[in-house]
């Protein structure tokens, strides 16, 4: 216990100072949310590269939570779906139902190149298509995988903070 306390004292704050947010990029539909965005993450067939980056975006260093974004356990609690990976056949229905389960207003963030245009998996037999072919997408985050900074930036576009 004392060891942990010492560690906390020694480490101090690891969160990097918040960078200036680029103006005018608030997604119009997200304005109603007023600085609080609960996010349900859906892995539609990702290679888990994006998941690693999401984890670090919500980790102490980038700390996406400080901008009012938070991961939640149920789409009912969510405002936005964070979809990674190309939509595979087995996840198509699940993704559609997850989207349906989110109460209005609902947003979809397609995270990574696979989610935007199937990336390296384009045309593969198990892939239905990009996320926008299945559910309407509001925000796209390019990159394979997108760096945490980009993820945080996109989320700040939703929270407006």
């Amino acid at each position, binding site marked *: 216990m004392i060891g942990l306390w010492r560690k906390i004292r020694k480490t101090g704050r690891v969160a990097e100072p918040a960078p200036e947010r680029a103006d005018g990029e608030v997604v119009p539909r997200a304005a109603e949310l007023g600085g609080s965005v609960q996010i349900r993450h859906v892995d539609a067939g990702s290679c888990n590269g994006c998941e690693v980056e999401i984890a670090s975006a919500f980790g102490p260093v980038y700390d996406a939570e400080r901008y009012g974004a938070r991961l939640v356990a149920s789409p009912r609690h969510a405002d936005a779906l964070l979809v990674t990976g190309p939509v595979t056949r087995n*996840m198509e229905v*699940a993704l559609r*139902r997850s989207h349906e389960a989110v109460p209005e207003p609902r947003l979809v963030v397609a995270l990574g190149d696979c989610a935007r245009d199937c990336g390296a998996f384009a045309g593969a037999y198990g892939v239905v298509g990009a996320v926008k072919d299945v559910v309407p997408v509001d925000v796209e985050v390019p990159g394979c995988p997108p760096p945490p900074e980009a993820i945080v930036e996109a989320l700040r576009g939703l929270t407006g903070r």
Partner: protein
Amino acid sequence: MNLTGTLFVAALGLCLAAAPAAVLTPRRARPLLAGAATTAAGLAGAAAGVTALSGQGWSARLDGVLPLAGVRLDLDPLGAMFVAVTGAVAVCAAVYGVAYARHGLDGRVAQATPPLFVASMLLVPAAASVSTLLVAWELMALTSLLLVLAEHRRRAAVGEAALWYAVMTHLGFAAILAGLAGFAALAGGETFEQLRAAGLPPGARDAVFLATLAGFASKAGIVPLHVWLARAHPEAPSQVSALMSAAMVNMGVYGILRVGLDLLHGGPAWWWLLVLGAGALSALFGILQAAVASDLKRLLGHSTTENMGLVLIGVGAAGFLASGGDSMLAALALAAALLHVVNHSAFKTLLFLAAGSVLHATGTRDLDALGGLRARMPCTTALFAVGALAASALPPGNGFVSEWLLLQSLIHALPTSGVAGAVTMPLAVGVIALSAGLAIATFVKAFGVGFLARPRTPGAERASESPPAMIGGMALAAASCVILALAPATVLPGLSRLAASLVPGSGHPPGPVPVSGEVTLRLTGYEGTISPLLIAVALAIAVIGLLGAVRLFASRRARRAARLWDCGAGPMSPRMEYTATSFAEPLQRVFDDVLEPESDLDVTPTKESAYLVESVRFRARIPDRIERRLYDPVLAAAGALGRAATGLANGSVHRYLAYGFYALTAVLVALAVIW
């Protein structure tokens, strides 16, 4: 004859007339006739009880009815309270029974016995002599046994349950008979007046109390004499279950009060500590079994054991405090126990009747097979919810009020009751608290799994609402629950006066009543107030206010119906729902060492390989541990004795006659030697 007497005699007369009438009328009119007569009898009985409780007593002496002794009746306040409760329960059960009889319960015996059963239960608390009490008691045992057997052709379990019931109730009867007969012999008379006046030596008093306690406690389903209760109550037709569980068990409490407090004028502290301990054990054991039970009616039966345990905690505390000379607190504990008797009767009637409706509609009482009744039986669901709220002792239910009073009496007892009290009272509070907590878990399970969610079997799927008469019976019980919950002052003054007069050493006239107040109940002599009505009103205002606030400030969007969140996989089959068994699993695990559940696992491998499984079969059951440890050895020994004795009976008639001859001769020889 005064008003009380007229009403009481009318009640008895209606019951006794209903029985032959039910035998004579044709099948179609029979339930209506018997039901109407029993309802009227119940009303008259309840009214007689109320008038007697409010001071207008009545007594009668009919010398010709019973040979030698004659029948003596006396409706004093103590008996009157139990008469009133029995009458009220009978009304609900009789109204309900009119419709419930439609499936196979309209036979002559099944219709003629309930009025007799009610009559016997009206007679027991009104009896004023040992022989009258015993005759009424035996009539009650026999009629209830007949009723338990009503459905024996349909289910095999009924026979076994009836056998257990018959044996236990007659052992209990024997104990009461021995106790009271001995008492009467020592007192030199068998009327209660003579018994009251008799001064018995301490050893004899102890013996009388212990014998009658055993007998009466077995009727109240007190651990370890409870094994018949959870068997017999569920197997009887539901309105009979209600009568048994809400009215008949009360007679056990009545007996303990009558003999212990009234006839013997209280006793040493250890008597009452024994009663308190038995009550505590019953409360815990009963509710623990109920918490892990998945048969709805069995669950209710175990809950009866729990509630009788709570009542006995109150009775024991009252006797204990009175023996220490604290008659005000003793009266408070006793008033709490009596109020709990009334409350328990109200909600247990309701719950058993609702369980009967469920059984009637779905054909099963297994909670694991129910579910989704909220949409199919909305009235029954709402009424069961009222009963469940009361049974889990939460405000604004009626169970809360009596448990609050009970806790108050125990808490205030601590500083004055010496070392024994200082050890007992905290443990008793702990027991009540744990049983209250487990009762919440039990009734959340019964209501949540049985009535909410989606149906788990086709039987539950096909359920439909019960006929109006059944809903009417339940609604009557629910109304009394609500009245008792919001305005306990309707019954409490009478009960506290009774409690104050019953406590030994209270003198004449008895001291001030322990609880008073109309809306806000106040303890006399101690600080403590509770206002059930205020709690309910405050809660209602808060909920309605919130609803308004939500309408006003939130939800600008319309409410949308959507599929259940099934993780996108769906559809969710009923097999994925939590069942009663899975709901109780954490509790079962916590109390593993107490319950000792059994489970066995059969894995059948396929022929090709030992590693491929064809079928897996898992069985789990939670046996009654006390039955296993206490009764099974006795039964096994009796069985072994019987087998050993088979050598004596070889089928020869001569031999049997010879046994008789030997016995006669032996007795004669013995007599000759002694004289």
